């Protein structure tokens, strides 16, 4: 679900298209945008406090003759939330799980790649300290 929360809407659509034909999905409740209050910890590791809210899109579906699927994603993309919920439902199906995982692998690789780029770019700005030779020695 962590990968599905980070996938682009277009990626989710492409995955669903690839996994098709799919059973019809009906909404358990209409997809909805709401807020989640994010929290921090005093001093980073202490007692919690309320930091501020974030928008979240959620969806819950049931596949015809199959499992229920849920999705919660930061942002307001209801279409992406519904697509993620369908994927979640497909993942519940043992017969389809491997195919879903395989389709998500590309997204997982993209995310890992982006994180690696951030780390490499940040590491290039790491300060190398050196000690100047002092004259009196």
């Amino acid at each position, binding site marked *: *679900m*962590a990968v599905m*929360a*980070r996938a682009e809407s277009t990626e989710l659509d492409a995955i669903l298209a690839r996994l098709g034909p799919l059973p019809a999905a009906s909404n358990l409740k209409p997809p*909805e*945008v*709401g*807020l*989640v*209050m*994010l*929290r*921090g*910890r*005093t*001093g*980073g*590791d*202490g*007692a*919690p*406090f*309320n*930091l*501020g*809210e*974030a*928008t*979240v899109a*959620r969806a*819950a579906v049931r596949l015809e003759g199959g499992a229920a699927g*849920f999705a*919660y*994603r*930061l*942002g*307001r993309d209801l279409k992406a939330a519904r697509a993620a919920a369908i994927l979640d439902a497909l993942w519940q199906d043992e017969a389809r799980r491997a195919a879903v995982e395989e389709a998500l692998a590309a997204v997982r690789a993209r995310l890992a790649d982006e*994180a*690696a*780029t*951030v*780390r*490499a*770019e*940040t*590491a*290039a*700005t*790491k*300060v190398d*300290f050196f000690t100047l030779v002092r004259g009196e020695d």
Partner: protein
Amino acid sequence: MYVAAKGGEKAIRNAHALLAKRRRGKKNLPAISLAQIAQQLTLAVDRVMAEGSLYDVELAALAVKQARGDLIEAIFLIRAFRTTLPRFGYAQALDTSEMLVRRRVSATYKDLPGGQLLGPTFDYTHRLLDTSLGLADEADEVDDQAGEAKQADDAAAPVSMPRVTDLLGQEGLIEGAPTDDGSEPFDITRAPVSFPVDRSTRLQTLARGDEGYLLALGYSTQRGYGRSHPFVGEIRFGDVEVIFEAPELGFEVSLGTVQVTECQSVNQFKGSATTAPQFTRGYGLVFGQCERKALSMALVERALRWEELGEEPGAPAQDEEFVLSHCDNVQATGFVEHLKLPHYVDFQAELDLVRRMRAEHEESRRAADMKEAAE
């Protein structure tokens, strides 16, 4: 006599149409897109998210555009929008030690584990205007160089980056953070605040407080109004994961990541007959890359702890009710700017009053003159 007046609908309608025209600017220029604002005016967007107290990059970019770059107006728009949405619940506290770090510096330790990572910073720039930025725009050229950044070869694997306060804490040199006793923190968006308040309420209030206001108050503590001798133990900025336990699922799910800036200030000592002297600390945590704000927040947060740490009160930044009641720029701008709205009746009353006072004054003066002449 009280006369109710009505009118101005047409003028208001036309004013708003004119506002829309001015916002758009010259029609022969392309309109600025939300993606451009989000990508190229990132720090304005971050500030709107932080003080609007709502993490949503696209919405914040829209607010910046609609407000013609007036960030307080944009923050106001975001605050108004958030009231239209239902609350799904509370996320688990963000774990900043697990951050995908984009910048991390310490002013207290040169060689700390993980190192000093400057990241995308204005620090060490010469503050000279770069005219090439304007030229690139005019020629409508893509500035290739700006998109390129050096990458270190050996940095793909995550590096552990302990917080400086953890390093100091191992030796007992700094006070610990207040422990999590499992109780729910107060939420200022759900219940009215009455003073005095606890530390978590202060942090929530400061996290959405005005950057300029907190900067001025933080500055005042450095200049001697509530001195607390701060060091920047650490400032870090990057991506952290949001974990939420959805009520209908009954288990934790990851919602994605948000960017935050965290600042730990290390301040002068407290000790007593029973405890050895220790450094004290202030804390700042803000949405987006808002370093000035996170640092100012840590300074003010520390100053507000004077009573708990047995310090002398008296400085503006130590006055909890004053600091917290005035740090919200939406509240402040609402009350200050309402002065522009019609006050015709109030003013009429005052005009009437001052005329009467002047008449009485004139009368008493004349009476005094007459008396003098008679004598």
